[in-house]
C-alpha cells in the first residue's frame, strides 16, 4: 500500500487549462495519474472534450494516465439538491450549487482514492479563478482538511501559477486550445449551465458573485456531515 501511494495520484480533471497543466506537472512527479471526471446530471454536458484532452495526454505520456468517469448525480442530490430551496433561503446566494457539486465530487474522489490505495489527491484550483467559490483559498483549505481526515494528501499544483503562463505552456506543447472569446477558451472542457448562470452577472456586468467567506465556511462545515456519511456508506472511511 505504501509503495502504491507514493507512485499514484488522483486528479479531478475536466480537460481545461488548469487541470491539464496540473496533469502535466503531476506526471513529472508521479508514476501514474488517475484523471477523475464527474458529471452531476443537471446541466453538465460536453464530456467528449475531456476525453479528447485525455487522448492528447496519452499521446504525450503513454501509459501514465488512467481516466475514470462517473456520475455523481445521487451524491449531488444528497449533498446539495435535497435542501437547495431551504439553503437558498438561509444562505441568500446560489453559490451552494457549485460548492455542493464540488463537495459531491470530492466525496466521490475520497472513495476512489481509498478503493485504489491512492494517498494523494489533486485538482486544478487556481488563485486567479478565486471568484469561483470552490477555488477560494478558504474553500481550498477546507477541502484540504477533508482529505486530511481520510489520510489523503491534497495537492494544488497550479494554485499560484498565472493564467497566461499556463496557457503559454499548453500552446507551446501543442495542446488544443479551443476558441478564444474574451478572457476564456471555449470548447476545451465540459460546460455547466447552472454554473454559467451563477457567474453570468460577473461575466456580463462585472458584478461580484454573491458569496462571502463566512457564509461559504458555514455551508462547507454543514455539508461535511453529509459528505462523511456518503463516504462511510460507500464502504470506506474513518474520517470526519
Amino acid at each position, binding site marked *: 500500500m505504501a509503495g502504491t501511494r507514493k507512485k499514484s495520484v488522483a486528479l479531478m480533471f475536466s480537460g481545461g487549462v488548469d487541470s491539464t497543466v496540473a496533469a502535466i*506537472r503531476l506526471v513529472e*512527479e508521479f508514476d501514474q495519474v488517475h484523471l477523475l471526471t464527474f458529471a452531476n446530471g*443537471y446541466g453538465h454536458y460536453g464530456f467528449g472534450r475531456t476525453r479528447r484532452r485525455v487522448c492528447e495526454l496519452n499521446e504525450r505520456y503513454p501509459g501514465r494516465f488512467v481516466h475514470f468517469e462517473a456520475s455523481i448525480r445521487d451524491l449531488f*442530490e444528497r449533498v446539495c*439538491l*435535497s435542501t*437547495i*430551496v431551504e439553503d*437558498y*433561503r438561509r444562505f441568500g446566494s*446560489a453559490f451552494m*450549487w457549485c460548492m455542493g457539486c464540488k463537495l459531491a465530487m470530492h466525496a466521490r474522489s475520497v472513495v476512489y482514492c481509498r478503493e485504489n490505495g491512492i494517498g494523494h489527491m489533486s485538482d486544478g484550483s487556481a*488563485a*486567479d479563478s*478565486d*471568484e469561483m467559490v470552490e477555488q*477560494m*483559498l*478558504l474553500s*481550498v*483549505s477546507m477541502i*484540504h482538511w477533508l482529505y486530511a481526515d481520510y489520510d489523503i*494528501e*491534497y*495537492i*494544488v*499544483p*497550479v*494554485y*499560484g*501559477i498565472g493564467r497566461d503562463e499556463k496557457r503559454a505552456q499548453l500552446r507551446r506543447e501543442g495542446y488544443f486550445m479551443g476558441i478564444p472569446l474574451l478572457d476564456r477558451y471555449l470548447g476545451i472542457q465540459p460546460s455547466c*449551465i447552472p454554473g*454559467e*448562470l451563477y457567474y*453570468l*452577472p*460577473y461575466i*456580463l*456586468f*462585472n*458584478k*461580484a*458573485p454573491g*458569496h*462571502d*467567506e463566512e457564509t461559504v465556511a458555514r455551508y462547507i462545515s454543514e455539508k461535511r456531515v453529509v459528505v462523511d456519511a456518503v463516504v462511510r456508506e460507500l464502504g470506506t472511511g474513518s474520517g470526519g
Partner: protein
Amino acid sequence: MRWFGNSEPEAGDDMAGCCGGKNAGKPISRKRYALGMAFFAAYHAAVGAALTSAGVLVPRFRPVRDFHRRYFLHLWQEAWRRKGIHLDTGACRLDEDGA
C-alpha cells in the same frame, strides 16, 4: 496542503481580496449593461421554460425549478437596480458623500 514549484501563494496573499474576481466592480458601458440584461433575461427564460417543462414530467427537477425561479427573481431585481453594477458615465467619480 502541498504546492508545487512556484504555485505557492506569495507572502502577503490572503483571503482579504477573495470572492470578487479581478473584474468585480469595474465599470461597464450602458450599451454592455443593456445587452447584458437582454442576454441575461433570455438565458434565464430559456432555462426556466426547460425546467418548468421538465418539472411536469420528472419530479426530481421540481426543487431545481423552484430554486431557479427564486434565484432568477432575486438576481433580476438586483441587476435592474444595478446593485453591485457600476455604469461608466464618463463623468468624474464622486465620493460616497458626493464630495
